[in-house]
């Protein structure tokens, strides 16, 4: 178990290093970023001054080494636009994004696990196929289309919900639903399949034979075992889809989170912020996945008790 956790951690560190390197060289591919940010009316002296100021002088390799050294020190650079440390710019946006993703994850679990169980139990009736059809087609609805339709109906036609910002609980409703759409579609399918695998197992029959209530058989023995499979899916899907989705959803609803920051930095070419933001999100995704990997190993006795 310990060896497994250690191996997961080492793999994680290597991946992180690879990402830092790739992100660094990606932003240096097009030459000196200063030229994009500043217009033509800049003198040569000023350009050189700024280049040094932002640590962009010297060869790519010196820059890379300096970048790594500063990274270890916790110096991540200055935003071109806001003239303050990127760590600050990104940090103040972490919480709104976390709120949105947590609320979407909670909503997803609340909706898709009961639906998935229902679809598995009623797989021969129209209820099961209706759930699966909707989930299947839901996978093909881009979240920006869903968000736009929600805005049209609930904000403009019915005038029920606010569109911009994250001030009140009502502000959470549309972004949460829009971000959850794809997740619910995916997770409902996974829950159904995981439950179907479990329902035909011998221990389910044993549990029924012991005289347990059907509800308890399904929830404790069925869902309990299916959740091992679901856990890994939730990690990959939620972390990946939510990170990608929040970029879109936050831009639509002017949500002051990382996703919106990334899009803005990409459009305005604020490289240091973009670099650090991408790294933050990638790190978050990788860490969440590593944690879930280890939790998964822990939950599965076959891995927990295996040697090595």
């Amino acid at each position, binding site marked *: 178990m310990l060896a497994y956790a250690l191996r997961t951690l080492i793999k994680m560190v290597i991946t992180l290093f690879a990402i830092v390197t790739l992100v660094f060289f990606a932003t240096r591919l097009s030459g000196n970023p200063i030229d994009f940010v500043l217009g033509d009316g800049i003198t040569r002296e000023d350009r050189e001054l700024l280049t040094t100021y932002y640590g962009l002088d010297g060869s790519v390799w010196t820059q890379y080494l300096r970048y790594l050294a500063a990274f270890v020190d916790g110096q991540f650079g200055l935003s071109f636009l806001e003239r303050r440390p990127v760590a600050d710019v990104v940090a103040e946006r972490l919480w709104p994004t976390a709120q949105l993703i947590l609320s979407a994850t909670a909503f997803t679990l609340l909706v898709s696990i009961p639906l998935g169980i229902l679809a598995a139990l009623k797989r021969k009736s129209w209820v099961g196929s209706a759930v699966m059809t909707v989930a299947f*087609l839901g996978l093909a609805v881009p979240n*920006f289309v869903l968000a736009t339709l929600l805005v049209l109906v609930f904000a403009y036609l019915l005038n029920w919900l606010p569109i911009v910002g994250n001030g009140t609980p009502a502000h959470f409703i549309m972004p949460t639903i829009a971000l959850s759409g794809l997740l619910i579609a995916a997770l409902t399918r996974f829950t159904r399949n995981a439950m179907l695998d479990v329902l035909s197992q011998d221990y389910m029959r044993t549990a029924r034979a012991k005289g347990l209530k059907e509800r308890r058989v399904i929830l404790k023995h069925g869902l309990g075992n299916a959740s091992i499979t679901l856990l890994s899916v939730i990690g990959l899907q939620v972390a990946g889809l939510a990170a990608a989705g929040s970029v879109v959803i936050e831009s639509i609803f002017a949500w002051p989170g990382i996703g919106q920051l990334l899009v803005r930095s990409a459009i305005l070419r604020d490289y240091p912020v973009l670099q650090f933001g991408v790294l933050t999100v990638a790190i978050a*995704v990788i860490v969440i996945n590593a944690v879930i990997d280890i939790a998964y190993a822990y939950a599965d006795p076959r891995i927990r008790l295996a040697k090595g």
Partner: protein
Amino acid sequence: MTDHAIAASGRNQPRRLPFPLPRLDFAVTFWREANGVQRVAMILALVLLVTALAAPLIAPFDPNAQSLMSRLRPPVGFERAKLAYLLGTDELGRDVLSRCLYGLRLTFLLALCGAVIGLAIGFVLGMFSGLADGAIDDFIMGLVDAQIAIPFTLVALLLLAVFGSGLDVMILVLGLYGWEQYTRIVRGEVRKLKQMPFIEAARAAGASPWRIARRHILPNIVSPLVVQFTLSFSNIVLLESTLSFLGLGVQPPTATLGSMVGIGRDYLPTAPWIVLAPAAVILLLTFAVQILGDWLRDRADVRLRSR
């Protein structure tokens, strides 16, 4: 089948031509096997493809021609509508129908380029990874792991910020999407096939590695690749429209479905048709591709891992 039908199908009198004809019988087989929904999806996909290809012929207007006199006209059937503009006009008086048609065409084109490039990159890396051992394999699989770890939208944002938004950059970005899936599939299949007796036999018979790859390995991995291609095609359509929606993809005035939704959003309260028309086309397209892709996957019975 009656004798007449057999004769009509020409099966008992094979004609020999000096050149091979494109085989259409697989289309007939597909049609026979499909259920109702899948048939609808097939027709839908075909209609969308044909309208996209024929956009310059059937579009009633130039997609970028502005007519400030008839701005924000609603679709036919509503008040103030003009008969010429079937789906209405946008904020600059451009015909929404024509823009949808051209947008669909561009989306198809970009997604096709992207999917083909992704397939090529992933296929070559997968072959290398599967046939070579040790360092090369480790390196390529390390890249695959890193790519899986980062949500691709972030990669796309980085690339678009660095290279700027243009059609060529867009093709590059979409081409980089999904290569790791192909690499994993190809590598896995190659590793499996390498152990097979018929490969060993071919090698013993003196076939070159190139010949083995082309004649013995390639035919055996075509069907999982076709399935992955369909899946990745629909994801690329989503990615392209999302990036264009955010204003990072194809730049105005060129119409793509995503950018029409993105820009039209500002007029949502007063002129919802500017958004609804391209949104509906996107949904029709993704539904059709989704249904067909899923069906192909079942048909090929590839045990693609579901996560």
